[in-house]
């Protein structure tokens, strides 16, 4: 029982990341009809917003390290720590959540720039061409990040108050169930972002227009609504969602330049399983596949199906495509001849 609860929790935090990326992918596909292979790169850019913010906060003075006697060594002390002491240290410690403040405007701008500067020229082109150009863009973005930040993963730490593990079992009256606190925070954060996006689409006039545009773009245009501009904003919002997923993921996994590619393929599978163009499907499939992947890593399961942890997601995708080609919640006519 303990093991099952723990693997579900593990699947939920992984699923949170998959769901957030897949949500943005589906939003873009549903509104603009674009298959965006650069979406993983947006997740990676979000993670590097966090890295950049941490680096800004830790701009340091280089001072001689007298404790090293073999050679002339130097150590770096952040100016924030020099100027503000413990308060400065606390700000540095909470850098990851604080970097959301940087990530939102940056990712919005990146989204607008991508859509206006490149993607809009490919609206009427085939999906194959869209995939090629967005995949190329993803490679360009990751090489830019590699140039500035190097190839190695950059460890980022969670705020000390949210590091370590929480006694989750106490909530269910079960002993011996503790789970990393930041991963729980990440799951809750992903739920909050998903809720905000759905609320935005369901409860605002803007959202209503976007949903109408997703259903029938031509008719909405005939009503005199500039749907193109609305969709540019949607692209920006999708970029922010992917970026925020990346920002908060940095304490879980040290970011590197190809982080986006690792998540992109999985997220596309999530979209296919959930159903192309279905927002609810993307979120549901994200969590479902996260949990399945987690269970597939259990020793008991691997003992029966060796290597299943590596292929489970793709196996599910194959089965879904065979049994229900439209995906679990896919709309009729989307990506169908």
């Amino acid at each position, binding site marked *: 029982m303990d093991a099952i609860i723990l693997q579900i929790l593990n699947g939920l935090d992984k699923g949170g990341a998959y769901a957030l990326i897949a949500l943005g992918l589906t939003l873009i596909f549903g509104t603009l009809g674009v298959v965006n292979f650069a979406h993983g790169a947006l997740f990676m850019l979000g993670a590097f917003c966090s890295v950049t913010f941490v680096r800004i906060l830790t701009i340091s003075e280089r001072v001689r390290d007298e404790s090293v006697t073999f050679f002339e060594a130097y150590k770096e002390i952040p100016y924030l720590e020099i100027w503000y002491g413990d308060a400065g240290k606390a700000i540095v410690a909470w850098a990851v959540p604080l970097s959301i403040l940087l990530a939102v405007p940056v990712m919005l701008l990146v989204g607008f720039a991508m859509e206006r500067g490149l993607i809009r020229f490919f609206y009427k082109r085939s999906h194959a061409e869209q995939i090629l150009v967005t995949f190329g863009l993803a490679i360009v973005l990751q090489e830019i990040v590699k140039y500035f930040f190097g190839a190695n993963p950059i460890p980022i730490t969670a705020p000390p108050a949210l590091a370590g593990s929480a006694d989750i079992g106490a909530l269910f009256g079960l002993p011996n169930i503790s789970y990393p606190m930041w991963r729980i925070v990440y799951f809750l954060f992903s739920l909050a972002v998903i809720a905000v996006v759905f609320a935005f689409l369901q409860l605002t006039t803007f959202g209503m227009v976007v949903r109408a545009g997703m259903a029938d773009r031509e008719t909405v245009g005939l009503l005199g609504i500039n749907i193109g501009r609305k969709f540019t904003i949607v692209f920006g919002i999708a970029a922010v969602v992917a970026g925020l997923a990346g920002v908060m993921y940095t304490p879980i*996994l040290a970011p590197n330049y190809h982080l986006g590619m690792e998540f992109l393929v999985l997220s596309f599978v999530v979209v296919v399983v959930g159903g192309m163009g279905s927002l609810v499907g993307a979120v549901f499939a994200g969590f479902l596949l996260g949990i399945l992947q987690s269970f597939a890593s259990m020793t008991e399961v691997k003992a029966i199906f060796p290597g299943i942890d590596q292929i489970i997601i793709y196996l599910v995708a194959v089965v879904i495509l065979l049994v229900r080609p439209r995906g679990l919640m896919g709309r009729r006519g989307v990506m169908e001849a």
Partner: protein
Amino acid sequence: MAIDTTAWSRRRILKTGAALGTGLAVPHVFVRNAWSQNNQFCNNPTGGNVVLGFNVPQSGPYADEGADELRAFKLAVQHLNGEGDGGLMKTLKPSSLKGNGVLGKKVTFVTGDTQTKSDAARASAKRMIEADKAIMISGGSSSGVAVAVQSLCQDMGVIFMAGLTHSNDTTGKDKRRYGFRHFFNAYMSGQALGPVLGEEYGKDRKAYHLTADYTWGWTQEESIKNATEALGWQTVQAVRTPLGAGDFSQYLTPVLNSGADVLILNHYGGDMVNSLRQAVTQFDMKSKQVNGKDFQIVVPLFSELMAQGAGDAVKGILGTANWDWKLDNEASKVLAKSFGEAYGSPPSQAAQTCYVQTLLYANAVETAGTFYPPEVIKALEGFEFDGMGNGPTLYRAEDHQCFKDCLVVRGKENPTNQFDLMEIVKVVPRDQVTYDPSIFGGELGPADVKGCAA
């Protein structure tokens, strides 16, 4: 009966034979290896330069080690060419090194990126041999890569001086005549670490292994399992994880509820940094109690670079190392100073082994008086030396494995400076980690191969 005086007596035949033999041998005795100089071999350097090929991971999970290895190679080349402070050229004993390059030729180098992938590593080594005319290949921070490149070098007749590779297979079942390893191996780690684990954590323990799923991980897991089970420990589970997995949470999640009270991470480089950080800082394992005992984490192969990456998570963690810059011997101090002045940080164990391998190759060439690989191999096989930081060391002829003291180390609880991250718990003597070469099988293969033919 007439005696035939024209017939050859036995004495005459012997005398004539001895005279002929001596006469034929004279050029070989006085002009060492004269015959091999005329032999054509792969990338025989003909100009004023000799090219070495340094094949290191510049990306992937072992990229940190790769970067430090490259720094060490550059420093070794400087020292061989008589630049800088000379480093361990001054301490190696016995030494044929002169500080004017190798056999009077200036040492230059080319580099390749193994990407910690066997196929990429073979491709870059092949490129360095075929296009850049490298006479020797060195480097690598992965046993999978080392085994693959070593095999290529055997086929091409180019000596491979392995960098950081810790699998038993490198000088065991996959050993090659053209491959040489200075670094220690998983078996030695097990032999060194086992007794210390018994002393520190007792003999009634249950271990859970997470193991990188490739040649090094398998042999590391086997070696440490053998050593701990010999102590009386039980192995609860041994789970294989993909190399470069990044997020190990799905593998860490079941550990605390498995009944195990020790987690053994058979991971290295970026994988180890990720899995250890996740185990300690996210899953908080070091603060847990299981079976009435403090939960412990062991990392059988440890390095300062990984300690830097993992931060506070390494505190109190036991493991083994091939070398540490804080060792109290002259050569270690000389290398730490030389490397530190050049790069602002002390050398990692990966850097030390690569630096030493470059010097040992150059020394063997000088000793042999030729770049001809079979002669260089002879000079390296059975070479007993000191002054490279590890104490008296033997390059065993039977498997091309170096035998020397190795270290049991622990992540330091209260570091005195940014580089003082590990403390040496025990220097395990060479005799304790020496083994019969036949236990891992394998064949070295021929020394005389058709050069550049792969």
